[in-house]
């Protein structure tokens, strides 16, 4: 009996391929299904969706709100520091300034200047102010405006 459910010695073929169907599940579906879900989880998953979009090499327009001020910034990438993903963004708030710097927002978010330009903010802090985002796909080489017809 003890070995009846032993972990198999060899890799088994299972229907994992079915789960790879991109139509089957997306993070958007998880976020949209809010019935009874923990609001913390939904905010967290939205930020993870943003990271997924940035990981694919695209940039994103982030709609932010501290429930007093609404503002938009341009997310361009992320890096990892400790247990934090830090989202890199450019902010049109003003020269060298950001709405997400400490003291400029009511949510207590404290973005930091990023060495390569712009700012970075931790994904935990972003859950407090991210309302939505729009992914901007990388330009397709075949659609770069050049006339490819002979």
């Amino acid at each position, binding site marked *: 009996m003890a070995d009846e459910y032993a972990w198999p010695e060899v*890799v088994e073929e*299972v229907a994992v391929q079915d789960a*790879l169907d991109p139509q089957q599940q997306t993070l958007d579906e998880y976020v949209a299904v809010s019935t009874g879900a923990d609001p913390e989880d939904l905010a967290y998953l939205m930020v993870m969706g943003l990271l997924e979009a940035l990981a694919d090499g695209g940039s994103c327009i982030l709609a932010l709100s501290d429930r007093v001020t609404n503002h938009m910034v341009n997310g361009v990438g992320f890096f990892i520091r400790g247990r934090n993903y830090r989202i890199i963004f450019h902010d049109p708030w003003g020269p060298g300034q950001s709405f997400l710097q400490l003291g400029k927002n009511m949510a207590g978010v404290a973005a930091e200047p990023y060495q390569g330009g712009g700012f970075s903010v931790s994904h935990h802090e972003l859950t407090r102010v991210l309302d939505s985002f729009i992914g901007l796909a990388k330009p397709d080489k075949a659609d770069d405006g050049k006339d490819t017809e002979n």
Partner: protein
Amino acid sequence: MEKTLRINETSEGFIAYCQGSSSPFSFLAGQRELSAQKVHDNYLFASQASPGRYMLQLVWPDLHAGISDLDGSHDLEILGGYLHYEMEYQKQALGNQLTPDSLGVRKLPTGRQFLIWCSEPADSPSPAGPGDGEDTSGSRTATPYSGFASMRNGRELVVFGIQGLGSGWTRDAVRIKAIRIAFSTFFD
């Protein structure tokens, strides 16, 4: 190699730091009012979230020698093998089945893949309907359905199992919590 787990309370919540035979990793073990216990080789955590209390089980076995040396291209096969084993066990021991359409593959922002699925009693009246099978007794008994997330960590398997406690938990809430725990996992 002996496995060690320690918990730190941070602004993020209760973070478990794990060290075994592969890369150290950490994850969100609980949000508020954490209690934890070790059950054989597994760990069981209970904590509080908005819909109510919930349980998180960490299953953290070493892979067999023949499997552990396989490269990353076999990760999904390995995770699928464990899924098969886990659901066979649940079917025979608990009468549970895989929730239809609950199986999916997701990626951490770092690119590491994990498997997500749910299980529920085989006699659930409407398996696909959100909230079906909920515990509406108002008690703190565990929900009859569970959400799971599994990932490979080199020579180890890391599996998170979530069950809600009480009536506040829908099936979607349990599934989403499992995804959130998987996303909270960082590998050194």
